[in-house]
């Protein structure tokens, strides 16, 4: 090969390790890719320096070259992180570079884990860098429900203890103002308010994974700030009024009530506003009332609500509503 590495004196000491996919010896591997020559060469040098566990500037440059050709190459990301830490590189510079790469490859997993590895270096980032949340806002402007970005943001909150950092709830408010149906933002909101904090294992709901409790105890907090709970319930109600057929705030509210040990019945009147005779404005309100009635021993009324869902407002889920009706001990209509 006489590619850019083979002809570079800096790389003269390295013997590349070719892909050797068996093509030459007559094998015909599945899903073979007609790799571009540049990629074959760069990855053959990558194999060689990785085999020697080389931590060097030239290896770092090589990783950037391979990433540019294939950002989904997870191996090269892991190797790059190792080199950066071994050479004690300026990690702020790495974050700046990652910003451009992340905006370019929106669906990539590896970038976000790499960012987390870099950001978790306490020596370089003892506290939250001021621009970090701004960058995440830029990412959400591209895709407000990007799962990898939200996963990273959740990690960031725990790592830097940002539950009460005003910027977190501000960004959630902003996203929900733009699209009240952004369920990722609702989830983040729930975790900011009710998620486990310092010293507790991370979990989507309190008590989860605790063998001394049952699954029905999941999500129930021992102590809650009642003012905060009331504020969150009011926030959910305002969101529901804007768009009653939006599942997110209804289920957020269920989570809030569960966390605070309060029952669904305190919203009976509110939910009832969306189920007035023939004018039903929210299937979630109908389901809410079904649960309130079921909890109060009014099975007949609960079944009426479930039948409304089954027959008119959410008929694709007929079998599920039938299952719920059966569970109430009533014959399926």
């Amino acid at each position, binding site marked *: 090969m006489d590619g850019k590495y083979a002809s570079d004196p800096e790389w003269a000491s390295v013997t590349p390790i070719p*892909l*050797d*996919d*068996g093509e030459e010896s007559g094998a*015909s*591997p*599945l*899903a073979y*890719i007609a*790799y*571009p020559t540049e990629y074959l060469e760069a990855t053959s040098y990558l*194999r060689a320096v*990785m085999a020697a566990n080389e931590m060097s500037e030239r290896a770092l440059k090589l990783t950037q070259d391979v990433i*540019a*050709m*294939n*950002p*989904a*190459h*997870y*191996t090269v990301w892991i190797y790059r992180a190792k080199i950066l830490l071994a050479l004690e590189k300026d990690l702020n510079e790495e974050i700046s570079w990652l910003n451009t790469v992340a905006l370019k490859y929106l*669906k990539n997993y590896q970038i976000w884990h790499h960012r987390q590895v870099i950001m978790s270096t306490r020596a370089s980032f003892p506290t939250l860098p001021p621009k970090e949340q701004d960058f995440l806002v830029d990412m959400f402007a591209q895709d407000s*429900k990007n*799962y990898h970005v*939200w*996963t990273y943001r*959740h990690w960031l909150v725990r790592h830097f203890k940002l539950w009460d950092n005003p910027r977190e709830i501000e960004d959630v408010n902003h996203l929900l103002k733009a699209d009240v*149906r952004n*369920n*990722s933002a609702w*989830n983040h909101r729930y975790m900011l308010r*009710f998620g*486990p904090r310092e010293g507790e294992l*991370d*979990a*989507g*709901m309190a008590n*989860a*994974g*605790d*063998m001394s409790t049952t*699954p029905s105890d999941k999500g129930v907090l021992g102590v809650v700030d009642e003012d905060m709970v009331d504020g969150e319930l009011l926030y959910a109600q305002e969101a529901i009024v804007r*768009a*009653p*057929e*939006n*599942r*997110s705030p209804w*289920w957020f509210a269920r*989570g809030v009530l*569960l966390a605070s040990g309060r029952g669904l019945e305190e919203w009976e009147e509110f939910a009832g506003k969306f189920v007035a005779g023939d004018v*039903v404005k*929210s*299937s979630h309100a109908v389901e809410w009332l079904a649960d309130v009635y079921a909890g109060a021993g009014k099975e007949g009324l609960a079944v009426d609500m479930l039948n409304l869902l089954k027959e008119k*407002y959410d*008929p*694709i*889920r007929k079998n*599920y509503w039938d*299952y719920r009706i059966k569970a109430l001990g009533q014959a399926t209509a």
Partner: protein
Amino acid sequence: MPPIVAGKHRRKVRFPSSTSTTSSNSTNQQPPPTKSTLTNQKRPGQSRPRPKLSSATTGKMTSQAAPRPGIPDLFTQPSAIRDPLVTETTDLQDATLEKCLPFLKGISSTQQGPFNAYGVPALQRDDHVAFLYDSLEDYPPGFVILDASRPWMAYWGLAGLFLMGEDPTRFRERLIDTLRPAQNSTGGFGGGRGQISHLAGSYAAVLSLAIVGGEDTYSLIDRQAMWRWLGRLKQADGGFRVCEGGEEDVRGAYCVMAIISLLDLPSELPPDCEARKAGLNTLTDGLAQYLSRCQTFEGGISGSPGVEAHGAYAYCALACLALLGPPEETIVRHMNLPLLLSWLSSRQYGPEGGFSGRTNKLVDGCYSHWVGGCWPIIQSALDGKPQGSGPPATTVGSLFSREGLSRYILSCCQSPTGGLRDKPGKHADSYHTCYVLAGLSAMQHYHYRTDSATGSNKSWASAFTWRSTPIREDNVYEKSDRLAALHPLYGIPFPSVDEMRLWCEARPITP
């Protein structure tokens, strides 16, 4: 008859894939295939122009056009309630519905018949089989981004072919050629030579090897090294990293359980691994609790604790729990089941009939497997402890609309150039082809557990008690659209599960 014969015959694929649009900044690289090259490569007889569905006026016309006979209003009429407030979510949802409606009504000019009495088009078998054979052949340089996913490409192609009634064992030699250089002497498989071992690649490799079967195939896997490597991925909180230095998530947990149960690996942690220092003794210590912490207030399950509930991770978590032990014990013990059922059930949308992965996101054909695959596991958990060698005397039955999902798959997910897709307007790829077909297969079979497991080892025995029988009751597809059955926890043929497990049991690994 499939129009293509597999073997040494190498072809350049016409390969439509949404992933191919990812560009790289390498200047000398050939551009990846684009939509325009694709449309030029349509085969004869499929060159009818696509209707322009993007404009509002055309949209109105299509939504008002009459459907074929035999299609209930449930699958052609928008939901009864619609909020006036418009946001990005409703814009995307409306656009999706507008694109799906002509397909649901059976009146899109790109659909191929024949249509049956239910207004549902036939499964275009030859086209999909051809697509799958192609998917195992050569890719042009623009597909370099798949370099780390080649074990996946093998799995999707082989599983898809099996579902379609083809014989994947003919690829045995070529699969071994593909995976041998991807295995690391330190345990596990990477995407190819020189790539570090990854749980996703190892899972896809082990499943693919199981599908093609045979002594030479099984003995390719260094099970002792695999076990040691898995030990190095175990984390103090009970979960697993996907590779050394990589992220920890529910995919990792599921892939590990699939691998150790199929390969009959010891459950003990290797003596020298880090997780032992955290007080853990086995690969499964704390694993169910880790999964429990991934359930969210919505009831669904996230990729890692505290993140949004997601259909693909829900499958990974539930299948992992069902591998750990009988689901009526593991799932009931670790999940809030009423909450989970509510969330899982709300993944199905009308009138589309398909599943979405998250609340307020769009339907996507791949969730036919990820969400659809949760249902047999949940159903089995609700049916309780198996009492005999056949199906249970009483069952809770299907808690979702089989008809809806079958309609979405056959009407909306078949690409006119072969292969299956996310939704109308998207290109087919082998990932969607495999998982949409897997979803259709799951609609057509009843999966249940019996009271006896294949093999004699008691570890993970529940995983080996699953059986399946075709559902004969009415549905909207034709006999000729029937697919083969896949094991609900492994996604490979039932005999492949049993044979690999028995072979491994006969060759125990000593810790």
